[in-house]
């Protein structure tokens, strides 16, 4: 996905790719732990989605800056992992403090997911992908947003289905996580229909 000039349709394709074709969760396997924990109810899923969209869209560009203006300048790119995770952890901590002070109502709805988002592989993974795919600044922002959107989409679909599991007669050994994983696989299979739509 190395390009010099990005047209608007390129950005649209990037969004389609991030959300549907290469869904960060179902195809790229990032973000599974909170996926199974938070998708039991719709309201927790929606809270987590907004949290991830906000954090990822901000940390994607921030880590891009850290990589290009700090690590590359001093030739310590091998410390990328450390620098990125520190940046993400600090950012999330800062956001949590601000939200707690500015809007307790928002903190109730969203704040409890923020510590969970710090160790969400989808955040760090997308930051890595931004570097691996050699994106410029604007594509980084768009790709981060698209990945978060894809995560949210998969999460909300999953929550909608799992709420109905409450009434289904599932054998005891398959309840909870097991059937959740199988369902995730089947949802992922349906996302395969989008393959070939974009790179």
């Amino acid at each position, binding site marked *: 996905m190395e390009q010099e000039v990005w047209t608007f349709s390129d950005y649209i394709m990037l969004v389609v790719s991030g959300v549907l074709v290469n869904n960060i969760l*179902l*195809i*790229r*396997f*990032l*973000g*599974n*732990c909170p996926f*199974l924990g938070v998708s039991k109810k719709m309201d927790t899923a929606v809270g987590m989605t907004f949290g991830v969209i906000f954090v990822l869209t901000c940390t994607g560009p921030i880590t891009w800056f850290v990589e290009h203006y700090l690590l590359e300048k001093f030739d310590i790119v*091998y*410390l*990328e*992992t*450390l620098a990125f*995770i*520190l940046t993400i*952890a*600090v950012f999330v901590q800062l956001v949590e403090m601000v939200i707690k002070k500015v809007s307790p109502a928002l903190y109730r709805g969203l704040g409890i997911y923020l510590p969970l988002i*710090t*160790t*969400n*592989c989808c*955040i*760090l*993974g997308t930051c*890595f*992908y931004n570097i*691996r795919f050699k994106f410029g600044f604007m594509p980084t922002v768009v790709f981060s947003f698209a990945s978060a959107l894809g995560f949210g989409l998969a999460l909300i679909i999953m929550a909608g289905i799992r709420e109905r599991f409450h009434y289904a007669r599932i*054998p*005891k*050994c*398959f309840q909870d*996580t*097991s*059937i*959740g*994983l*199988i*369902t*995730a*696989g*089947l949802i*992922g*299979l349906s996302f*395969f229909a989008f393959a070939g739509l974009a790179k």
Partner: protein
Amino acid sequence: MDGSRLVKEFTKGLWKEIPPFRFVLGLCPTLACTTTVRDGFGMGLCLTFVLVCSNILISLLRKVIPSQVRIPCFIVVVATFVIIVELVTQAYFYSLYMALGIFIPLIVVNCIPLGRAEAFASKNEVIYSLADGLGMGLGFTCSLTALAIFREVFGKGTFLYHHIMWSGFEPFAFLQKPPGAFVCLGLMLGIMNLIGSGEK
């Protein structure tokens, strides 16, 4: 040093609290890195190394780290060992490094090292933390390898890149793809629960 306790901490990671089946943690590499047995085994060993080293270091430093900043400190310790693993695999096991891709650096946000640091290493002596890390890591490696064997043998028809199925065998390509990983892990988890409930 209590020998029986040492054995207990080591063996619990191998069956009773085996990640990712009993302790549902560390699912991302379980799904992503098990397309072939080499990848699954390799990822398991990488994680074992990080887990053991970070458990030891955090256990050594447990009296020194202040409680308010313990999570960032744990993250920094785990990240250090992850970078070491990343550089070693890049230098000596290049094909494994290319196959595992971003999942090696993602060990830093894997719930297993951080979870064990928080729950165990920060509260127990070094020798028990080592046993715990080793047990969990080896248990994780076994789980990953088991899943990878299933996915490679039936999904590709090979075992460690040698064809072992009969010539007319049509592999279940589904198992090699991401949805197949989810379904396969889900079924294995269900079967493990069945075996586990039978034990009770």
